[in-house]
């Protein structure tokens, strides 16, 4: 769940972002508290607080005095935009690097992608 070589508070922020993106944490619902995050991920509460602060700075979470942190309206869209723009760097570039090593061209990759995408949506029960 937690990986090496990356600041912990960023990982905590990303885990919360993931939950907002996949819909398990809906907008205007209560986000986990710093202490809950600390206990769940077994990390220092100050680190968890730093992750939460990063999301409030971004406007993804907001604080309701005395009650806790909540997911802001529009948070999902903000995160989608951000993640989509990082998608190529994060996933496509390493994919291309490995493909180059294996001697796969752009057409091979495109064919492979389509094949896998069809298989994935078929297994979810909604054929493309």
């Amino acid at each position, binding site marked *: 769940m937690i990986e090496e070589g990356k600041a912990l*508070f960023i990982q905590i922020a990303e885990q919360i972002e993931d939950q907002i993106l996949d819909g398990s944490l809906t907008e205007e619902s209560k986000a986990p508290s710093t202490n809950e995050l600390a*206990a769940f991920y077994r*990390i220092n*509460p100050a*680190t968890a607080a730093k992750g939460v602060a990063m999301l409030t700075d971004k406007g993804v979470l907001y604080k309701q005095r005395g009650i806790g942190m909540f997911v802001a309206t529009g948070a999902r869209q903000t995160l989608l935009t951000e993640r989509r723009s990082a998608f190529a760097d994060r996933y496509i570039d390493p994919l291309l*690097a490995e493909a180059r090593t294996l001697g796969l061209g752009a057409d091979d990759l495109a064919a492979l992608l389509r094949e896998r995408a069809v298989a994935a949506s078929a297994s979810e029960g909604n054929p493309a």
Partner: protein
Amino acid sequence: MTAVIEVQNLTKRYKDTEALAGVSLSIQPGSIYGLLGRNGAGKTTLMSILTAQNFATSGEARVFGESPYENPRVLSRMCFVRESQKYPDDATPRHAFTAARLFFANWDQALADRLIEDFQLPMKQTIKKLSRGQLSAVGVIIGLASRAEVTFFDEPYLGLDAVARQIFYDRLIEDYAEHPRTIILSSHLIDEVANLIERVIVIDKGRILLDEETDAVRDRAVTVVGDAAKVDAWSQGREVLHRDELGHVASVTVLGHLSGAERAEVAASGLDLAPVSLQQLIVRLTQKAGAEALAADTQEVR
């Protein structure tokens, strides 16, 4: 924020050996510190001096702004859980906890009772007859339930199995979240405590090797693996902590944060990047400091 502990140029000499060689540091309130280092690095000596159980040869140590020696105002606010704590021969855990409850103003009996159950500690057995793990549990319970403003845990886990250690870490995080205070945790099990500690202090041969926020250290070093010639060319001019070679493949651990662009460049040139855990980083830093000290000594002899 005012520091709870302020140490200036602290030195401790035992006959021929220098256990502490000019240590300076400051400990802020409301934080969990990891005090890490090899056996004999000076960790226990430092904690003993801070809790007035040992004398410094020179230098100054102040706790809550005062000298800790024979100073009940300071000592009653600190708890030192020693690895080799001695108890009277006929004492049972119950006696130890009763004494602790009298001494520590913030003692929480409900927490102590819960921990006794967690660790399944036999209360009527004499401490002398407890197993090593049960003896450690007595210390852990006193350390947590005392809720002292400053608590030192000196390798509190000896003899505790993985399950019992996890109980300790979980209860520590839970209780610390509810009751923030200053915790100084000395440990060899760096990977186990890496996520709990906010700040890491590494001590080696009586000197401070590293004193930084744990999160800042997490991406401080990186290992690059691949074709030896390429790896060596890349690491040219960087601070190399460690190098391994297997045939034509080299693995080099370098100090320094890599930007996204630098990472992309490494990947594009066909080299692999691997993260370096806190434990690996500390091992490499300590080894490097040792090698440099040795080189300096050899130079002096010449």
